[in-house]
């Protein structure tokens, strides 16, 4: 788990009470690169009030470190996250101190059995992560989970991977070398003010390491029962002083999921990916990043032809820090995805995106950020008789502006963040997403925070343009009148460091949704045909508790407990009976326990235990599962591990009603890694 709460086998900023003003971090949003790689602890330490910013003459700031007695409690990785300079790029976001954030660190991933990004996301206890079949996942925070969980925004190195076709994420093509992931921030709760539309229930922000941090060679090979074989190769070097690069390639074959009767589901798949990243800090105060990925893969189907997916992206980012502690970030990227699902549709999507952000601290009280962005998404569908997106080609343009002020009301004690995003959509018009967040730190070891925010999910093509079948009479018709889904969210949270070894974090929320996507019968009382509309309301409430207990230098425990109640109802005048029963497919309870144990300097033994409650309206039973890993590092260059996932059952169900269900089998695999 690497909860946000806890840093690597350590402690993490977020459980630790924060003094947000003081945390050296980088601007989160659209530039999660190294300078911006705000790793947990900078925070942690920083934030636990450990770190204070001591104002000096001329508005210059100097980081004051906590006393040695506090620093000695941090792990080596945590120490490495503390920034010893006053570069504003590393300043903490106040807005995040007042939010439910959990951070999965590189070390969390390294000490888990995770071989993919969705598997790593199981480590965040504030997420619902359900594996649907061999390659598809339902991942969301705070309810309304589904194959296309349309209320979670997901970014990889500042690039949105939320698809505007289906309003969700194709998890099967979001990949990289697991060892190159620097951190995954999981924010449950709305992040729209900063991140924009679709960050309704949460944001998953994945950052990879800089090229500077991935110098040298890495070869990882593994194989076993579900992950049949997997190879990764990466090499990093220097092009010039201050200019570093890495290149990588990976390939894997993954086996079938399981039908409820125990036979193989015939959905094995394979994927190859290659990419590069180039970072330069050669010029003083400037950081440049250029990176790209290309992938190609296919999925076996019970049918004539395999599903085929491929794509690529190229991203450039320029970050400039000025002497007055202000900084700016400009980012541009191009992303191309292609997916052919025989007998269903073929999609080709090209995205062009530009973002700019400028942060300017004014005096000691105000820390002001503004930004703007433009995105063009060109989506071209080849339809089949079974279903059709009409029109088949669509181009959407989005323009957004964003302002935010982080206000220090009482030094080290009371902070308020006010901000709003304004977005202009060519499909649906204008959206306004304001929020107010406050963090109160009554004493150095505890923080109380509260927030009220508005967020929207803008309609996607699946809402507006999808018709089944492709020609009238339609059984399901698109909804040209669909409007944005809206959320008003109320959040209240508390973090407390109980002792030097135990830290707790609690986040609670009440969410009030309106204009949720529904299916309105066109000739009631007949259930079909239906048309997509915005006829549902929803409410949810819940609590996310996470704890970190550092029993000794060699043994740490992390725990997470999430309670959630989600419901929907037709708005007055709606006769929806179909969508209302199926838009909230969420377990009421989830419990996690993670043990990280260093048996000796060479041996590690890690265990993840999770309980997920039943999903009543899909008749998915509750289940308990366990992952374990035993790793041996005889010499620094070599690591061998034996990994087991879902060890408690031969196979178990995580999602979907019995008729369309695929179950998830036990997976055992070995892995060897060589660094040179």
């Amino acid at each position, binding site marked *: 788990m690497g909860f946000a709460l806890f840093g690597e086998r350590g402690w993490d900023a977020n459980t630790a009470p924060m003094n947000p003003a003081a945390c050296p971090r980088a601007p989160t949003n659209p530039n999660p690169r190294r300078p911006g790689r705000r790793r947990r602890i900078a925070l942690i330490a920083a934030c636990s009030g450990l770190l204070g910013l001591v104002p000096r003459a001329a508005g210059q700031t100097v980081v004051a470190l906590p006393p040695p007695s506090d620093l000695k409690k941090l792990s080596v990785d945590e120490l*490495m996250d503390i920034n010893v300079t006053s570069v504003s790029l590393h300043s903490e976001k106040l807005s995040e101190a007042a939010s439910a954030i959990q951070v999965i660190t590189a070390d969390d991933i*390294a000490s888990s059995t995770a071989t993919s990004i969705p598997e790593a996301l199981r480590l965040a206890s504030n997420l619902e992560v359900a594996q649907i079949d061999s390659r598809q996942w339902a991942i969301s925070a705070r309810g309304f989970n589904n194959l296309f969980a349309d209320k979670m925004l997901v970014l990889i190195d500042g690039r949105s991977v939320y698809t505007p076709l289906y309003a969700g994420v194709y998890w099967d093509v979001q990949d990289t070398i697991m060892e190159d992931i620097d951190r995954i921030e999981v924010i449950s709760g709305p992040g729209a003010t900063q991140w924009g539309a679709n960050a309704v229930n949460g944001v998953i922000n994945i950052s990879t390491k800089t090229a500077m941090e991935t110098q040298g060679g890495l070869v990882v090979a593994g194989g076993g029962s579900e992950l049949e074989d997997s190879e990764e190769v990466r090499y990093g070097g220097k092009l010039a002083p201050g200019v570093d690069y890495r290149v990588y390639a990976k390939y894997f074959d993954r086996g079938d999921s399981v039908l409820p009767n125990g036979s193989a589901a015939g959905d094995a798949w394979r994927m190859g990916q290659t990419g590069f990243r180039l970072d330069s800090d050669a010029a003083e105060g400037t950081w440049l990043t250029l990176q790209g990925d290309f992938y190609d893969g296919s999925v076996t189907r019970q049918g004539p032809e395999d599903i085929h997916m491929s794509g690529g992206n190229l991203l450039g980012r320029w970050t400039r820090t000025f002497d007055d502690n202000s900084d700016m970030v400009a980012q541009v990227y191009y992303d191309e995805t292609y997916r052919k699902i025989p007998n269903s549709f073929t999609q080709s999507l090209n995205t062009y995106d530009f973002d700019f952000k400028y942060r300017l601290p004014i005096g000691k009280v105000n820390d002001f950020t503004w930004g703007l962005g433009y995105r063009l998404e060109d989506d071209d569908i080849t339809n089949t008789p079974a279903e059709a997106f009409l029109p088949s080609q669509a181009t959407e343009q989005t323009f957004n502006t964003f302002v935010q002020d982080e206000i220090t009301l009482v030094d080290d004690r009371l902070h308020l963040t006010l901000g709003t995003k304004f977005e202009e959509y060519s499909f649906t018009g204008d959206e306004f997403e304001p929020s107010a967040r406050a963090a109160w730190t009554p004493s150095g070891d505890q923080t109380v925070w509260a927030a009220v925010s508005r967020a929207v999910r803008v309609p996607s093509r699946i809402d507006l343009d999808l018709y089944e079948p492709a020609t009238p009479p339609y059984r399901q018709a698109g909804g040209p009148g669909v409007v944005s889904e809206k959320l008003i969210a109320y959040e209240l949270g508390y973090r407390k460091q109980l002792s030097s070894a135990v830290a707790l974090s609690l986040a609670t929320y009440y969410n009030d949704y309106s204009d949720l996507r529904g299916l309105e019968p066109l000739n009631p009382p007949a259930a079909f045909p239906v048309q997509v509309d915005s006829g549902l309301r929803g409410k949810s409430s819940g609590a996310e508790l996470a704890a970190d207990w550092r029993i000794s230098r060699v043994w740490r425990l992390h725990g997470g407990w999430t309670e959630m109640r989600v419901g929907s109802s037709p708005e007055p005048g709606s006769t929806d009976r179909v969508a209302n029963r199926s838009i909230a497919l969420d377990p009421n309870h989830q419990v996690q326990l993670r043990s990280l144990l260093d048996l000796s300097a060479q041996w590690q033994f890690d265990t993840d235990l999770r309980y997920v409650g039943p999903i009543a309206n899909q008749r998915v039973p509750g289940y308990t599962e366990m992952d374990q890993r035993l790793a041996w590092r005889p010499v620094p260059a070599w690591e061998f591990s034996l990994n087991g996932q879902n060890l408690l059952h031969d196979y178990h169900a995580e999602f979907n009603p019995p008729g369309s269900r695929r179950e998830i089998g036990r997976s055992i695999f070995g892995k060897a890694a060589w660094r040179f």
Partner: protein
Amino acid sequence: MALLTSIWRSAILRVARWLFALALLHAAAAQAAAPPPEYQLKAIFLFNFAQFVEWPPRATGGEQEPFVIGVLGDDPFGPYLDETVKGEKIGNHPMVVRRYRRAEEVGDCNVLFISRSESDRMGQIIAAFRGRSVLTVGDVDDFNRVGGIVRFVTEQGKIRLRIDVKAAQAAGLTISSKLLRSATLVTAEDK
């Protein structure tokens, strides 16, 4: 009466002036006493190395023998390092800090930080410790190249470690994989 008042006033003024000067001095002294954050953090790392490195038994000596963190050359840490190790023990060995002007003065020592002031003769100094179980630590650019074991590098304001495992092995030291995992591994040939 007026005279008394005026004497009284001037006395107060004089005292105030002195206090002000003292306060300034105090502030300046406090400033000087606290090393820059970079060296505060490096001091904590030196303390941590003691936890993650295994010395051969002969190097740590008998019971109650101190575990020595040495600083050779100009001391960038000041009292901060002493405060860091105060009351700490490695097994039965109480940790102490010792400062040396010259390499020849270094006696029993487990972790030795070699200061920038010794840049010019870094190679000779490190060569002098060859065959002794001393974890050499430094932050000059060519520290690893001249045979030093752990080099601090500051990247993007954060402290990184470059560790030469071969040099550590030659010194009879075993570095925990936990520390190595967080470090960049180098050999003397790599730059």
